[in-house]
């Protein structure tokens, strides 16, 4: 595994995408990203974890109500150190999809995540989250057991952690269900993944009042890695193998491994209080608006130097 082998080609390719302003990108590229982000053969959370960790032990249960298979959490040995890995998990065949609830976690999932984060924080173990979900589970039982509070508390917990934290959008990152694992010191995003306030289909139904306008919605939301990088929502775009991550799971995991290791090594060197301050500032700055008192336009995103 060498940077020489993958780094140059991929990084150059990604850099070109990022350079191109979102609005100029042809529809096809954008829709292709949306499709690739949820390609059935795309590597899922455990595909990455099992390749990147020499050993991995999955934890189960929230100690409150149940265990949610849509979200996996555990401790892995990563470059000879302990790291907590947490991510939504999709399934590939019909049985597994049902078992994993299509990667849509309920409150038990987020509470399992918090339990593992608390242990990691206490033991001084960094936390890596892998985001891949069409959203949190929309079900009556999930609402009755506090879906909203589970997500908000997961966000709160991630913000409060003293240990280094990295979030990676590896596939589909939709809605609060994605952000529930998204508050980290570094936010990475795979080249063909998406990160959005809602799925294109959901937006289509609500904003266009027509479920068939998903492509139009995607075009309006522009939820690609390149755009998220431009908005300052993510710090690093992680390249995928030629043709997309689904073409080569090994290589995809190797590349992510390199980026994670680099980011972790970087974060190790920053004192915890500084990391937390920067984490706060990072999210505080996001979201452009017009403030007449300070002149028009509160700058965010990549027009100004990137945070950190």
């Amino acid at each position, binding site marked *: 595994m060498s940077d020489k082998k993958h780094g140059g080609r991929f990084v150059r390719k990604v850099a070109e995408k990022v350079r191109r302003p979102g609005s100029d990108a042809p529809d096809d590229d954008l829709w292709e990203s949306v499709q690739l982000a949820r390609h059935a053969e795309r590597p899922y959370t455990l595909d990455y974890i099992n390749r990147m960790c020499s050993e991995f032990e999955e934890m189960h249960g929230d100690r409150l109500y149940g265990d949610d298979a849509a979200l996996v959490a555990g401790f892995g040995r990563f470059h000879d150190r302990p790291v907590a890995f947490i991510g939504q998990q999709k399934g590939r065949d019909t049985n597994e999809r049902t078992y994993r609830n299509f990667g849509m976690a309920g409150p038990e999932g987020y509470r399992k995540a918090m339990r593992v984060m608390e242990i990691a924080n206490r033991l001084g173990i960094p936390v890596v989250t892998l985001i891949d979900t069409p959203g*949190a589970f*929309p*079900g*009556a039982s*999930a*609402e*009755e*057991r*506090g*879906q*909203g*509070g589970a*997500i*908000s*508390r997961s*966000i*709160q917990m991630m*913000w*409060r952690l003293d240990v280094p934290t990295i979030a990676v959008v590896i596939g589909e990152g939709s*809605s*609060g269900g*994605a*952000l*529930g694992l*998204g*508050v980290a010191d570094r936010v990475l995003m795979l080249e063909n993944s998406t*990160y*959005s*306030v*809602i799925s294109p289909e*959901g*937006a289509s139904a*609500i*904003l*266009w*009042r027509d479920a068939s306008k998903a492509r139009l*919605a995607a075009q*309006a*939301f*522009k*939820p690609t890695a390149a755009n*998220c990088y431009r*908005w300052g*929502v993510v710090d690093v775009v992680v390249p995928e193998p030629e043709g997309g991550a689904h073409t080569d799971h090994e290589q995809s995991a190797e590349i992510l491994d390199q980026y994670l290791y680099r980011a972790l090594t970087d974060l190790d060197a920053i004192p915890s209080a500084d990391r937390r301050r920067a*984490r*706060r500032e990072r*999210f*505080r700055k*996001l*979201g*452009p*608006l*017009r*403030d*007449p*008192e300070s002149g028009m*336009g*509160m700058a*965010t*995103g990549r027009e100004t130097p990137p945070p950190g």
Partner: protein
Amino acid sequence: MSRVGRNIHVSVDRLRQLAHRDARPRKIKADAGTCPKCDSHYSADEMSRNLRVCPACGHHFAVTARERLEQLGEPGGYVELWPELRAADPLQFTDLKPYAERIADAEKSTGMGEAIVCAELEVRHVPAVAAIMDFSFMGGSMGAVVGEKFARACDHAAQKGLPLIVLSSSGGARMQEGTLALMQMAKTVIALDALAEARVPVVVVLAHPTTGGVWASFASLGDVTYAEPGALIAFSGPRVIEETTREVLPSDFGRAERQLANGQVDAVVDRRELAQRIGRILHILSRPDVDPTAGTAPAGLQWAQGGAQKVKSMMDRIRPGSTDGEDAG
């Protein structure tokens, strides 16, 4: 289901009884003054006097943020904060209509700059900072301005050592600001921790509806959480759930009374008691004016001075072998 579990405490049932005294169904042409639940009709003046609650059936009508401030605070007594902030259009977003146009329309029709109003005020003589959402402005959706004003309200309250009152009424994140709207969930949750550090309480009032990214961020993190009767409180709305899971939902799905039984809120509070309830809990939680160690003990007791030895000496009074001191107090 166990016998323990989902017992319901609706704390203001007695207001239901009041309802019948003042009831007067008047069937006329439905308009903004017509109760959708019982068809009673009210003039604008009556509505305002009743805090926009139907005296006949208790239905809670929507309230604008500025009306809320008048209802909660002393008459005319609030200072609005950061009214000048306005939405940008980072995605140059268009659905059936350009976002810029939607914003301009909302500003015109509501007279508000955005879907949240922040203010400093006094609720029943307790000074506080309030962040109040307005559903009439683009469904109370949370974009960058709502996120920023909320975060500033947290900082402001923390700096001044004042409690924060949050009143939510929102369909969730503002989709027209895309991924950046999603990020406001993180921004607001993080901002709330300023109050934790300042050790001042947060009271959240959930008004109809509180859904999506607002329920899944600051609205579910109050120290004390009240909900207005009938308010829908959910991350996923009933329509989305029914379409996704093909479940048939009960008619009161996600409603305040049910969420109370689900352990999600502290009380369902009728709007006509809201200011009093907020004032009361803030008063209860406020620090004592007088240092409790400095002489506020009732007459006849001599425990006003001294420290760690006290319980010990009290214990000594009832210890085996000790007979003195029992009549000392």
